[in-house]
């Protein structure tokens, strides 16, 4: 009987271990699935925003469709909020009719996205290399950071900055 009891205990322990292992194996894959789904949803939003804003330069349409009204701004030249961004960008684009923003690559990872682009005021401009980082919540852009650098005349390597 005692041996049977010990056997039952061993079985119970084994069952517990197996359950823990199964749970541990399940959890990351479920989390990865959720993250993949979130990334896919946000990729569609960012691709649509990038097309409207960077490629077509339709500032108001892009921002009203995809940016939250109270979005948080980290670019030190701009104030918080969607209307402030539209108010800053629309006149700039109107004043520079030759302006282009060429999107080089887009990365999307869960609730964050990075857009690497070349902004040029006209065809002769060497331009500005920029990376915008955007945070999304419920399918809207809610926060923005960026880093920009003027493209220099010469390079130590044979490649462009992109």
């Amino acid at each position, binding site marked *: 009987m005692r041996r049977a009891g010990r056997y039952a205990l061993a079985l119970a322990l084994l069952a517990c271990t197996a359950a823990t292992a199964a749970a541990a194996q399940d959890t990351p894959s479920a989390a990865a699935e959720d993250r993949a789904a979130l990334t896919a949803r946000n990729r569609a939003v960012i691709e649509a925003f990038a097309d409207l804003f960077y490629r077509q330069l339709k500032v108001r349409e892009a921002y009203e469709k995809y940016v939250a009204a109270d979005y948080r701004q980290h670019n*030190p030249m701009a104030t918080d909020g969607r209307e402030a961004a539209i108010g800053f960008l629309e006149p700039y684009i109107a004043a520079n009719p030759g302006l282009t923003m060429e999107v080089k690559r887009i990365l999307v990872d869960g609730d964050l996205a*990075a857009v690497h682009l070349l902004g040029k005021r006209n065809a002769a401009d060497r331009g500005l290399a920029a990376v915008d980082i955007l945070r999304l919540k419920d399918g809207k852009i809610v926060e923005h950071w960026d*880093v920009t650098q003027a493209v220099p005349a010469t390079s*130590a*390597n044979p490649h462009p*900055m*992109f």
Partner: protein
Amino acid sequence: MRRIGLIVAVALLTAAPAFAQHEGHNAASARQAETERNRIIVTDFFDLFYKQKKVREAFEKYVVPDYIQHNPIAPDGRDNAINALEPFMKNVPGLNYEIKRIIVDGNLAAVHAHMRMSPTDRGNAVIDIVRLENGKIVEHWDVIQAVPEKSANPHPMF
């Protein structure tokens, strides 16, 4: 007989989007698996390089010898990167890189960092983008901008 053919055709057409959705799901899962593999590599690389300042170890472990450089002040190749970065990191003892966020998407990763030369330095905002192939970094781009004294909004640049 013709009606059966029609039914089969309709059934096939109806099944096609479901199949496409399944394929899309598999592609998203495969991409996520690649993302997670590369997240581990990129996180460890920047921990060794930026936080621990072990330049040679980081580059020899995770960067291919013939890696492509787009930073306009640096030439191509791993050894050139090590030779430029090792003395820089040693000669500026107060140098500090604070990693703010890492974005990984398939074979690409972006790292947003605050680089300061001393505790009183406002420093530079840096975004590095790297491309990976078979678990190694093969290409690098970056943008660097000095953090200004004042901002139009109440937030830091990060």
